[in-house]
Structures are given as C-alpha cells and as structure tokens.
C-alpha cells in the first residue's frame, strides 16, 4: 500500500506537492469537515433529508481532486460531497440538493460534475461514456468516477471496467474502500484480498493507496490521470480509508462494528497527519487553524442560508424538466396539479 505521510505526519520520500499546495489542500479538508459536521446537525434538526457523512475520507476526496484539471468530468456518489465541492460544485447547490430539491442537481455550466449518484454501481459506466465521448471528439479531458467498496459487487462495476479497458477510455476508477457497504464488512463482500486486484480481470492497472494519506492519494491519482491523458487507458485506484461516521444519519453502526474499531480508526484521521506535516515545516500554526475553521464555518453557514432561501417549488418545478418540450399529458396534468 503506497504511503507518503505516516499517521504521525512524517514524510517518506519526497512530497509530490509544494508546501503551499499542501496548505491549500489542508484548508480544503478543514472546509469539508465543517460542511460534513454541519450537515449532520442540520439533518438532526430536520433541515436536511437523510445525509451520508464522509468524515475520515477527506484525504481520499481532496487529494484525488487535486490531480484533476477543471474541465475533467466527475461522476461521484452521495458520499462524495467533498470531492464534488473541491471540483467546483457549489456548496449551496449541494445543500439545496440535500434539502430535497432537484435544483441542487444543477451545477454551473462550467462545472463538469454530474449530480451525485444515489444508486450504487450504475454510475461508473457513465464516466466511461463521458471519457469515450471526449476521446471521440478529440477533447483533452478525462473522466473520474468515485465509488465505494460495496459498489464493486454490482454487475455494473464489471461492465464499466470491461468497457473502459476494451475501448481504452481515459477513465479513472477511484474506489474509496471505507471498509463497509452499510453493515457488510469488505471481507464478506468478496473473497479477493483487495479491490485493486480486480483490475487484473480487465487487463487494467490496479493500485492500492493509503486513502488517509493526502499526498499518496494525490500521487496515485496523478499517475492515473496522466496515464489516461496520454492515451494510456483506464486505471483502478483502491484508496483504503474508513467511514468514521454512520452510513447515513439513519444508520446505527453499533449494530455491526465495535467502538474499539471506531476509536482505532479515529486515530488514523487523515487531517491529523497533514497538520502535523505542515507544522513540522512551520507552514501551519494554531492561528491558521483557527482562522481557517472560522472562515470555513462562515462559508458553510452562508451556503446553508442561500440554499434555505430558495423558495418552495411549485407545480412547474415538478413538470418543467421532464423533456426539452412539454407534452400534452404533462400540460394536462400540470393544470390538474395546480388548484
């Protein structure tokens, strides 16, 4: 398993990124965690629909996005808000979606990020199609797709991996192996030792990286992205991480894992080691920490406020986006829906 930063924050070998860049990424991790923590409490207050926390997976998401170009496609899931946000998906749009409003599914025109996939498995092949389109059109873009360990059990994972390999599409398959598919631990999902080894079945390179190691994730993703961009085809990356929170705000992890296990996982919190690394290099101090958290908190509150300021939808909202042009049936029904 590739590692560049130990849990204590000491650098093994040399950093793929200049210290300033690491500072920025650490700030993004702090922003993400603010977003995540506030989402959980908002949900408890009934202001958000079910929420899927990503605490513990910040290095995997922020580190991988750092290897992308702004116009690279992203196809991610319900648990990848940090990655989507880091790639340009506005926080208020993410919140709006989580309040239960389709308008949150529309990112700005220059943000090439699909709305998060709620179904498990079906979305990976979309990143194959998008990358294939770029290749056919001679566009210099790649596509990355995020998914979990559980998604690799779906038949659609197999078909997506196979199509990407057969057509050599510039696709990066980024698996966050956080140890569980809801309650089912990885070792009961499959008998292969790793997720990465599954790439062998498609003649595709597969790599394992410490998903809690910002620098290692960045380096592994950069390799895969460069390979894709230079017509080297797709790569499967297994980022080993851990979901510190529940599967969603409806879930009770005590039913399927121990407090000790969770404690041990917290000790591998991906933020700790980056902070330690920055501090060792005098590139970060308590005031940076405090200032960034305050900034993040304010930004998140603002995003929440603007999401909640969006007026309650009317019938046009329900009927208005089914087709480019409405139909007789939709018109008739919309008038019936409007008392």
């Amino acid at each position, binding site marked *: 398993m590739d590692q560049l930063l130990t849990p204590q924050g000491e650098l093994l070998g040399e950093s793929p990124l200049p210290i300033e860049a690491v500072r920025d990424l650490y700030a993004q991790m702090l922003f993400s965690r603010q977003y995540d923590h506030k989402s959980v409490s908002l949900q408890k207050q009934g202001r958000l629909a079910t929420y899927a926390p990503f605490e513990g997976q910040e290095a995997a998401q922020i580190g991988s996005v750092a290897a992308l170009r702004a116009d690279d496609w992203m196809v991610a899931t319900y648990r990848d808000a940090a990655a989507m946000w880091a790639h340009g998906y506005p926080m208020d749009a993410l919140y709006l979606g989580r309040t239960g409003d389709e308008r949150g599914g529309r990112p700005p025109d220059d943000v090439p990020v699909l709305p998060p996939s709620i179904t498990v498995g079906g979305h990976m092949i979309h990143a194959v199609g998008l990358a294939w389109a770029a290749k056919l059109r001679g566009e210099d873009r790649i596509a990355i797709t995020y998914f979990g360990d*559980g998604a690799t059990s779906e038949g659609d994972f197999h078909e997506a991996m196979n199509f990407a390999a057969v057509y050599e599409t510039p696709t990066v398959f980024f698996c966050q192996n956080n140890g569980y598919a809801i309650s*089912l631990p990885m070792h009961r999902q499959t008998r292969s030792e790793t997720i990465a080894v599954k790439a062998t079945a498609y003649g595709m390179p597969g790599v394992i990286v410490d998903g809690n190691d910002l620098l290692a994730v960045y380096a592994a993703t950069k390799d895969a992205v460069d390979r894709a961009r230079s017509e080297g085809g797709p790569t499967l990356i297994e980022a080993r991480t851990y979901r510190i929170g529940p599967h969603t705000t409806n879930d009770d992890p005590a039913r399927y894992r121990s407090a000790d296990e969770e404690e041990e996982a917290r000790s591998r919190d991906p933020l700790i080691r980056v902070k330690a690394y920055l501090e060792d290099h005098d590139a970060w101090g308590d005031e940076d920490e405090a200032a960034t958290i305050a900034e993040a908190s304010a930004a998140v509150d603002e995003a929440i406020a603007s999401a909640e300021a969006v007026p309650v939808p009317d019938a046009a909202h329900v009927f208005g986006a089914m087709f480019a042009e409405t139909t007789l*049936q939709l018109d008739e029904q919309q008038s019936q829906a409007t008392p």
Partner: protein
Amino acid sequence: MTVRNLAQALTDAHHAALLADDDVIVLGEDVAANGGVFRITDGLLDAFGPDRVIDTPVAESGIVGAAFGLAIGGMRPIAEIQFMGFSTPAYDQVVNHVARIRNRSRHRFTCPMVLRIPYGGGFGAAEHHSESWEAIYAHTPGLKVVTPSTPYDAKGLLLAAVADPDPVVFLEPIRLYRAVKEDIPDEPYSVEIGKAAVRREGTDVTVITWGAMTKEARAAAEVLADEGTSVELIDIRSLVPLDTTTITESVHKTGRAVIVHEAPRTGGFGGEIAAVIAERCLYSLLAPIHRVTGWDTVFPLKRGESLYLPSVERIVKAVRSTVEDR
C-alpha cells in the same frame, strides 16, 4: 392477539415462517446483522443463525438469481430488495427466469420464492427511494403481485406468499410501516392471495386502490360521508391475480368508479382496472371513470413531494366530480 404496526406484523410473519419450515431462509442486503434498513428482519439472525438469515453483497441481480437457484434446489427463500428503485438491476432475473421456469420446464422445476420490495413515497426520501413500479411486475406473466395495507394483511399475505408454490412479488408500502397498527393474532394465519378487501361499503361510488393510498382513500371516504356521499372502498391487495369479481360487482352497484394510485398515470395499473370496468360494467356506468394518480414525472424530492402524491383533497375532488357528473 397483540397490537402491531405493519412493520412489526411483517417481522412477526418472518419469525413464524422461519420457525415453521427449515427450508425458509431470508437473504438480502443488511438483513442480518443490521436487521434490514427498515428493521423488518430485526432479531432474525439471533433467532435463526447465519445459515438462514443471510447478508449479501450489494448485487440485486445476484440476490434474485441466487434465490431462484435456491428455490429450485428445494429452499423457500425470502429475498429482500432495499427499495423498489433498486429492484431494476434484478428485473432481468425476475422476468426472464423467476417468472418463467415453471412454464419452460412444464412444472418440472418451480420457484417458490418471495421477493420483498418496500415501495412508495411520502417520507421525504432521497432520489430512487420512493418509486411505485407495481405495474411493471404486474405485467409479467408468471408472477403474483400483492401489497398489504393493514398489519393483519401484512402478516397473512406474507405467510400466504411463503407458502405459495409460485413466485410472489411482495410490495410493502413504506409509508404505512409505522402508520397503521391493530390487534393481530400471534399465531400463524394466512390471507388468500387474489381476493380484494372491501374496506368500507357504500352505494354512490366505488373507489379502488391499494397500498399506501388505501389510507388516503379511507380518509377521503370519511370526508365524503360527511357531505352525504357513500363510498365503497376496495383495497385490491392483489394486483395479480386481480379480483375482478369484487370490482365489477361493486361498480355494477354504484355505477361510478374512481381509481387511486401513487404511480405515474400513463401505463399505471389503474389503466388495467379502468379497462376491466369499461369492458364489463359499461352499461352500469353513470359517469366517466376517473383516475387519481401520481403524475408522468420523476417522483419529486422532499420539497416537491406534496405536489405529486395523490392527497385526500384530490381524491375527494375526483369523487365529487364523478358523482356530480351525469
């Protein structure tokens, strides 16, 4: 007798089924350790062990395909899909294999399995968690399709489904899991598959529905009763086989029919019921047959949901216009 809500009645039925027959097993995503996302299978793992209550990988086609083989091999699997929106990866297994093996082997191989699918909206869920696709299962010859709206029926229909020699798609109205309670027998009993229930007798208009909409329709019937309109409310319970007798007898009596379902209108199962009525009761009909349904749109997220779901108001309005019509 114990007071149970619909969810508890289902859990109770699972205990009874597993206790009564060693061949009965339960499989699905998070059904064992976690007790199911709706806790329907809660406690079964402790009671019956990991060989009979089985957590599966996230692979719906695999769940149904494996259950198919298990059933042919002599077991009586109860397979759970977490939400109807996630039943489509298994749709091929259901329509091309589960529904056909008896016919294609001339009774030599059979598939006595139950496919449990929670369905319907009204609880502000995420995308894909509120679908009502009963029509796509009801259109598949070889499947029985049932859906309970009371705790009593939930237990009785599930036990009937487990005992059935053929595959039964068992649709569970999520919104009713904890919204309806009643005293139900503690011992096993079964409710015949293929018989509709007249939830309320009436003379002016027949309202036909199933699943979660039964609750809205009951409430609408109360409102209408206060204004002097007598509603006969039919909960079909079983889409396949459909109890056309109960439906046509009622419409012959009332001369008016309103069909209520949550699924999109176009191609919804309400069309089938309207067609049966238009074929068999035309000369008794005093007014057009109305359908109160979900719209031909994607099921909206939380903030738009109330604009989509048939409400008591919409049902009342439709019945009014039906009785006024002549």
